[in-house]
């Protein structure tokens, strides 16, 4: 079972847990990314996530399908949120279940690492002083115009 989505809807972590856990699974892993207050020492008030939605949707699904090839019987649900998020809001949730724990832990990590490398999603951090900055994990943050 695989379900992935890119959506503006708030992510319900408990619902993802319930979705992947069955009588046949013995281990479930949930990974959550949340908006945190400090990045590079600057106070963040929120993050605007945007995406190349059609490609991001397809690429996220491809990642989950690649992950599912590595172990039989995996159950995978992944949601990435876009739009304006506040502190502590969940930006991404990856739920994985399987009979055994090793496939669960390895798959959870595989998906978050691949997602961060490949899914065309961008984020712009908003700081307490009103400044906005695109986050570029490949270098330092890139300055952008203040609105």
């Amino acid at each position, binding site marked *: 079972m695989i379900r992935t989505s890119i959506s503006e809807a708030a992510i319900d972590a408990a619902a993802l847990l319930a979705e992947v856990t069955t009588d046949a699974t013995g281990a479930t892993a949930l990974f959550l*990314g949340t908006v945190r207050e400090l990045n590079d020492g600057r106070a963040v008030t929120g993050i605007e*996530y*945007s*995406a*190349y939605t*059609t*490609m*991001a949707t*397809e*690429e996220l699904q491809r990642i989950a399908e690649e992950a599912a090839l590595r172990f039989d019987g995996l159950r995978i649900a992944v949601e*990435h949120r876009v739009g304006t998020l506040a502190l502590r809001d969940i*930006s*991404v949730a990856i739920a994985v279940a399987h009979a055994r724990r090793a496939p669960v832990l390895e798959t959870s990590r595989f998906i*978050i690492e691949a*997602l*961060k*490398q*490949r*899914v*065309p*999603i*961008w*984020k*712009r951090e908003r700081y307490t002083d009103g400044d906005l900055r*695109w*986050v*570029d*994990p*490949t*270098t330092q943050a*890139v300055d*952008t*115009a203040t609105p």
Partner: protein
Amino acid sequence: MNQLQVLLFASYAEAFGASTVTVAVPESATVADVVGALRRLPGGHILPAVPLVAVDRRYTPGLVAVHSGQEIALIPPVAGG
């Protein structure tokens, strides 16, 4: 020459001042030729040496030929998660 539309996002859309730009390239153009044409537009100086390009929503290397009718997008460094 082909007129190709290229989708732009995030910091690239901001740098080019548009979410779509059109470039003129030869019939036999490759992904790298499209990037070269983009680099000569106003804002194109911000592109890294080898920017990511997606053709029909898949990452595509520079040597691959592009055709009109394909969905071509320039992908800034991704920051999901």
